């Protein structure tokens, strides 16, 4: 198996970037060997890329269940742990229980959604990564792995498709 090399092609606009991704596929590069880095969210359908997997909705659902259980503990169990009896009133009243359950469920959902972004994106991660600062200025980077012995062919193809620059990807301190 030949040695692989990572190249970074920088495009001004989305259309040449999409054309470049299609061409890379034609040249035998698989989707998982390509990544697109951009300064605005570009959806999979815009780029013609496979759907991105995200655990965030599942984590949010899990967090809401955990929040509900904590709320249930506060509402149902704490009154039994230390009964505060107020004359003529129920130890575990119904309507206030709903308030506690609602707030804790929402808190669990929102906190786990936030944590989900960190887990799925492996934030924070300050180790050097393939990046160029022009991306945050609106350029679109197509990052891909290709066989090292065929590097020039890929570079020429990207240039012909409108890449502003194409070079071996360098690790940048983020």
């Amino acid at each position, binding site marked *: 198996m030949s040695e692989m090399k990572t190249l970074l092609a920088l495009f001004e606009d989305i259309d040449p970037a999409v054309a470049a991704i299609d061409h890379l596929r034609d040249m035998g590069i698989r989707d998982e060997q390509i990544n697109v880095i951009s*300064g605005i969210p570009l959806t999979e359908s815009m780029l013609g890329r496979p759907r991105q997997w995200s655990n965030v909705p599942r984590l949010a659902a899990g967090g809401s269940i955990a929040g509900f259980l904590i709320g249930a503990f506060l509402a149902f169990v*704490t009154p039994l742990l230390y009964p505060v009896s107020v004359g003529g009133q129920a130890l575990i009243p119904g309507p206030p229980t709903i*308030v506690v359950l*609602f707030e804790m469920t929402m808190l669990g959902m*929102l906190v786990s959604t936030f944590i989900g972004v960190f887990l799925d994106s492996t934030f924070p991660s300050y180790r050097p990564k393939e990046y160029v600062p022009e991306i945050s*200025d609106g350029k679109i980077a197509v990052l891909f792995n290709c066989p090292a012995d065929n590097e020039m062919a890929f570079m020429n193809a990207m240039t012909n498709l409108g890449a502003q620059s194409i070079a071996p990807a360098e690790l940048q301190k*983020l």
Partner: protein
Amino acid sequence: MAVTAESLQHTLVEEHEDPREHLMFDPKPRGEMNGMVMDSMLTTSWKFWVVFIALSILVAVFLFGAWGYLIANGLGVAGVNRPSYWGIFLVNTVFWVGISHAGTFVSALLRVFKAEFRRPITRAAELMTAFGLIQAGMCIFMHMGRVWLSYWLIPYPNGRGLWPNFHSPLAWDFLAITTYILASTMYLFLPLIPDLAMARDRSTGWRKVFFRILALGFRGTEGEWTHLRIAMGIFAFAILPVMFSVHTIVSWDFAAAMRPGWSSTIFGPYFVVGALQSGVAAVAMVVIFIRSSMKHMKYFIRPEHLDALGKLMLVISMAWAYFFFNDYMVQWYGGDKFTHYLMHFQESGPLGWMWFALLLCNVVIPWLLLWNRKVRRNPGLLFTIGLIINIGMWFERYIIIPVSLTINRMPFSWRMYRPGIEVALGIGTLAFFILLYMIATRLIPIVPVWEIQEGQMAHSLRKVGKATVKSVSELD
């Protein structure tokens, strides 16, 4: 005929409006917009420092100095006493919680409904939420008096046999405000990450380190954007019921008590709409201030945004008037003797001017002025109306809390509330809010550049017959 000709002329003017008046149809290269936002952050005039120093002194004296005095001398230096146990401390708490509502409302609700005018102003509004809640929280701790014992609220085994009752309205408050402050801070931070990465790429020195830490290593890969987009979608939907719950629960602190003027089933939505009334007016004020005081902001914040905020203020003012009248009508018709005493006291007592002023500020002035497009698009006028609404809403909370507490079912205890140290503390919290906001405008990009570029990408002009019409594409 005159009306027809006039309206036809108006339509023609509208048709020939230059689309470049709108931010979405006047795009600039992303690098240039980034440069403008960074420049606005880094440019600090002498006026900024003068205001900064003045506010710092106000905060030191009126907030921390006065709070220290309160702690040293006890709650006796405040005006709260029987029967008005809840004075300006609680007025300010409700006021700041109300202010905090606008951030979520403008950002989340308008995001859900894809209202495009939100794009440049969401962050300014979200910041208000976070800083408003800090002030609200501080007011509660001030009101505790012996603030160093606040850990007694935490459930842990203790020798005094003290346990929090999670079915108490005050425990709901704690849970709701904690949920809201955490949720709104996270909701502020998530869409900020790409802009922090942009700032990291364009900074040097200590700012580079600061932005590098906060940007968390964000590059803008497909995966990162996907996770962020999904999370922001969940937040936009989930934070709305939390927002409604917070002020509803605050209203239950009052409505659940069998007191004249408070015991009302309409208090929940009435408080929520009141919060939006003051909050949206405050967003307009902040946005206008940013526009006039920060470099390049006239490109991002335009008369169209002020116009939209003005319309929102007018609609909310109408909704507030509806709920106010609902509450008033039912209390008046109920025939309870002490409620009638209270209503007469509110309208014709020593603070009757305040009751009429709140109607003037919240209904008469907004209704008379905000229907006019020219007024809505005039920054000075809209700022003034926003200020008037906020003064009116503060009066409303003052009438609801200490004035209503004056008249209860035990006439022998009726006594006017006279504020003490809490006036200074109120000035201190206001100064602290503005100070925090000023610092934030110099530390984080106040305009979400990536959201603006995304919006500009989605907008286009197309021909329908002979007309050129604006259209927006769904990018999700």
